[in-house]
């Protein structure tokens, strides 16, 4: 049994009486023919690698183009000394998203979630909560199963690749996954998980993939920040009882449809958007002339 739609997960929950995360866990056990403990330990390993990437970030490295590096540290320093606009949690979230996105651009070890370019969104919302509220690791792992269930449905019904669906498929999906994970962590219902994922994805619908010089640097790193912030907003709305008027599966299908109809220039080819601004062209030229 595969995870082909959110409705299917809801139906299986209702018929079995099992929670969302458990449906995803048991699907993994069936699909990969592994034990419960094997699946659980692999999720724990995945989570610990996320935390490790955050803990070991120093902000010293620079990316291939030199455009990326140090902003996560800049944000950490700022939140340690200044009264931030969005409050401490929000500032920590921004710092995490930047640190992780930069780590990826600078060839450090990260966890793709669902892609390498969008690797900052999930840890950005989970790690600050984990640290501030001392949430038990097992609770985080349940939330990660919820997130991966959402991601699996999007991958099946639409796309999680920038080359086929634009940035909405990468950061948008990551944001929907993170929103669902947050609702799970706060004890929300399955319906609220669905609404949170739907709202997160809707808000980023149409986001193009337009990387400067074709590199996973600009604007990718900072788009992890908006993916995380959007996830927090969607989760809080859902937990407040606000619903997505368009059902979640239909939102996912709409994302897939928009992705297929996005001009090729806006799907990772670096032929449109920010990539073809005078600045973008200049960077590309510079790298061509001086590849090291």
């Amino acid at each position, binding site marked *: 049994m595969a995870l082909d739609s959110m409705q299917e997960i809801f139906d299986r929950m209702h018929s079995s009486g099992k929670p969302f995360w458990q449906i995803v866990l048991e699907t993994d056990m069936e699909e990969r023919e592994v034990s419960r403990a094997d699946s659980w330990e692999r999720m724990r390993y*995945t989570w610990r690698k996320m935390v490790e990437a955050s803990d070991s970030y120093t902000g010293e490295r620079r990316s291939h183009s030199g455009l990326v590096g140090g902003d996560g540290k800049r944000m950490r320093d700022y939140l340690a000394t200044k009264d931030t606009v969005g409050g401490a949690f929000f500032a920590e979230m921004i710092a995490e998203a930047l640190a992780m996105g930069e780590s990826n651009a600078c060839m*450090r070890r*990260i966890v793709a979630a*669902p892609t390498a370019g969008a690797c900052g969104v999930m840890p950005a919302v989970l790690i600050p909560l984990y640290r501030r509220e001392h949430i038990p690791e097992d609770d985080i792992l349940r939330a990660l199963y919820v997130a*991966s269930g959402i*991601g699996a449905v999007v*991958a099946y019904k639409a796309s999680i690749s920038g080359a086929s669906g634009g940035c909405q498929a990468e950061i948008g999906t990551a944001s929907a996954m993170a929103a669902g994970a947050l609702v799970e962590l706060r004890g929300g219902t399955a319906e609220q998980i669905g609404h949170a994922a739907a709202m997160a994805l809707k808000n980023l619908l149409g986001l193009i993939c337009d990387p400067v010089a074709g*590199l*996973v640097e600009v604007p990718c790193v900072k788009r992890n920040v908006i993916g995380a912030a959007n996830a927090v907003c969607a989760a809080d709305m859902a937990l407040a009882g606000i619903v997505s008027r368009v059902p979640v599966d239909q939102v996912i299908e709409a994302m897939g449809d928009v992705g297929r109809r996005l001009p090729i220039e806006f799907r990772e080819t670096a032929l449109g958007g920010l990539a073809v601004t005078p600045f973008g062209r200049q960077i590309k030229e510079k790298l061509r002339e001086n590849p090291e």
Partner: protein
Amino acid sequence: MLDIFDILGPVMVGPSSSHTAGAVRIGNMARVLLGSEPATAEIYLHGSFAETGRGHGTDRALIAGLLGLRQDDMEIPNSFQLAMANGLEFHFHVIQLREAHPNTVIMELTGRDGRRLKLQACSTGGGRIRVDRLDDIPVGFSGEHHTLIIYNQDEYGFVGEVTTTLSAARVNIANMRLRRQGKGALAIMVIETDQPISPFILQLLQELHGIQRIVYYQREDE
């Protein structure tokens, strides 16, 4: 359905699952198929690998894979220095191929024991790869199964002997392809299996008449 650990994962060194993690896996695959510590590597990059490969660390990732590093090894960015320390000499070239996946690489390798291998492979997304050609013979396997590659003389009855040996060992065949350079010439049999193949069975296969060489790639399990 996609594996949920393809959604939350892989754990990898950035920046790109296709251009970095996939490139490490191609290098790794080439190392296994060569069956020897690589001493020289002529590497030809095509399409997007040639265009943005350097910026994505594709070059360092390929070398890292050839040296046996995994996709999550923090030493990947330093692979050129490691290659020097390990006596691996390499050169990169740009090539334009017809009808190849945009993320394609051709590697011509020589091992320390003199073995040679030419491999064409591509990175198909999310860190997944496909080996398209081995020594110019079209193959097409992903490394997502245990994979047995048998170089043999194109003779009758040979396929039957191989499959009989495997079925006696209770190894189920998931996919199987036969390609040859020409009638009666060198042939390559690619067999993807659900179960791993034991060294004992590999030894039995090795002793079959007409076998030139057997290479076995055991699927990566994290």
